[in-house]
């Protein structure tokens, strides 16, 4: 998008390097993220696509430093947000970051609002937390403006969450997330719980507001279509690693893709070609309590070789923007 050009090049808002996160549960140790790498520029929109359990939400919670207490543990790696080391920042510094500079939208709008507080006061609270210098009237005015922006009549701000429909609740959640004009918005499957028509409206709203506020966004989803609509770049996640990353054109043109990405595309119904059955990826998601030594996709991959089982591939560079983590794309080899 155009606004990307206004910022100096090479200015990364968020850098995640080799992040390892595990959950220590009573039964087993779950390796949720295994060397997760990600960079995000200011104003960039990145889609993160992956199956359930691929570590998408874990990544978002790590950025917020809100992994479940006593269970979630970062074992290696770093998260640098605009020069701040998130993993080492003080609790107070995190309180100032959350909701002001980084906001998050959750999957289920039905449960992400406090049922006994009016929606207006919940939005107001964000301002109260982060803009103590603002006068009451100013805050109320901002709340009204924000509600207007997300398409909720400000007159309804004294109503309670149960009086709104799912789509409207998600609009309110979006208002809460954006009222502080954050630099980064983490949207964790914001439309999964909504029906398709509402989904389109919400995505349009997010895209519009993102443009207005010049917010960078990480959109977490398992829907390749949603990513195509909203994002400039996409990262495909499998087994707690980014296995492919590129611009929408790089990935969606389907010339060179990670075998897993190809599998994902194969599972989407297509209006043009007539298929008796959708192709699904054989096998199950890799067991995060018992990770293989080599490539995590090896068991389900049609191109699997002896080497894949032995050695985890590195991220191979196909172009300035396109990267794939697969032995098939090693310098010199050619993939059909």
């Amino acid at each position: 998008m155009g606004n990307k050009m206004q910022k100096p090049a090479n200015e990364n808002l968020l850098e995640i390097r080799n992040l390892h996160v595990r959950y220590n549960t009573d039964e087993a140790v779950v390796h949720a993220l295994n060397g997760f790498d990600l960079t995000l520029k200011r104003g960039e929109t990145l889609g993160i696509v992956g199956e359930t359990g691929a570590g998408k939400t874990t990544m978002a919670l790590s950025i917020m430093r809100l992994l479940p207490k006593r269970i979630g543990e970062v074992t290696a790696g770093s998260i640098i947000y605009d020069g701040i080391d998130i993993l080492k920042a003080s609790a107070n510094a995190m309180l100032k970051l959350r909701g002001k500079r980084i906001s998050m939208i959750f999957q289920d709008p039905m449960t992400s609002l406090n049922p006994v507080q009016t929606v207006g006061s919940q939005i107001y609270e964000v301002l109260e937390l982060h803009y103590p210098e603002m006068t009451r009237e100013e805050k109320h005015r901002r709340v009204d403006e924000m509600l207007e922006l997300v398409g909720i009549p400000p007159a309804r701000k004294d109503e309670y969450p149960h009086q709104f429909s799912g789509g409207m609740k998600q609009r309110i959640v979006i208002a809460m997330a954006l009222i502080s004009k954050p630099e980064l918005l983490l949207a964790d499957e914001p439309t999964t719980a909504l029906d398709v028509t509402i989904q389109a409206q919400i995505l349009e709203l997010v895209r519009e507001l993102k443009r207005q506020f010049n917010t960078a966004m990480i959109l977490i989803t398992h829907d390749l279509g949603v990513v195509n609509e909203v994002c400039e770049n996409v990262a495909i996640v499998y087994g707690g690693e980014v296995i492919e990353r590129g611009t929408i054109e790089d990935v969606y043109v389907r010339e060179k893709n990670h075998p897993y990405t190809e599998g994902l595309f194969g599972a989407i119904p297509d209006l043009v070609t007539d298929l008796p059955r959708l192709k699904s990826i054989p096998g199950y998601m890799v067991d995060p309590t018992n990770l293989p030594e080599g490539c995590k996709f090896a068991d389900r991959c049609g191109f699997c070789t002896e080497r894949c089982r032995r050695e985890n591939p590195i991220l191979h560079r196909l172009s300035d923007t396109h990267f794939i983590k697969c032995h098939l794309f090693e310098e010199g080899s050619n993939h059909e």
Partner: protein
Amino acid sequence: MKKRRKNGGAVSGRSVWGLVWFRFKKNKLAMAGLFVLIFIMLAVLLAPLYVDYQAVVSQKITNRFKAPNATNWFGTDQFGRDLFARVVYGGRISLFVGLAVIMLSFVAGCILGGLAGYFGGVVDQVIMRIVDMFMAIPAILLSMAVVAALGNGTGKMLIALAVAQTPRFTRIVRSSIMGLRNQEFIEAAKCYGSSSARIIFKHLLPNGMGPVIVSTTLTLGQVIINIASLGFLGIGVASPTPEWGTILSETKAFIRYYPYLGLIPGACIALSVMAVNFIGDGLRDALDPRMKN
């Protein structure tokens, strides 16, 4: 919280608390309880307007053991004091010490239970083990022990009873908070930068109030009885200050010949405890989500 109370009080019928009031209103027994309690409260609260405190303490030996009549509505006791005046003024102590006890233990329980339920782990263990220790001792015995340690007096009795009731509130608040703390809106609240204190007091407690409010009303009945019991045992409110339990205690020797001396204060205790329990029952039903229709 401010917002919630404002809307909860109004009979708007739209807010969560408005709906609770709407359902509560349909429960006849609970409404009867509410009216009786309000009547008793007003009667004792406004006592100075229609009863002279002198009548409570001034003894007139020639006037003793008068059965209820036009001048002495509830009769007179063994010292010739007007029983009506004593019962009305006694109710001030029974009910308002009761309410104060409830409020004190409610606040303490919310803080302790909130901390234990939200933080869990070591904080939870420490708070709850101390609470368990207090819970192991029967409330009335614990109150007696505290009174014995602090000495006699209305204020000290208040503290004693509050200490005895706090464990109960702590447990209820804790369990209710534990059920809520993993909800998504709590996660969301963290995500927009709320501190732990804010999450506990602004998000968790208002949402977990249902069971706590029910327990508050039911415990109020218990506390009124405890105050009376302590009074009856002679370690509560000291004579000549009237209090329902103390009145019963003082007159117990004469109940055989002048039964109204026991019946009237006894009936006051029974009536207010019953009213409070009906309200508690009604609230429990009104707050139960399965009853929503």
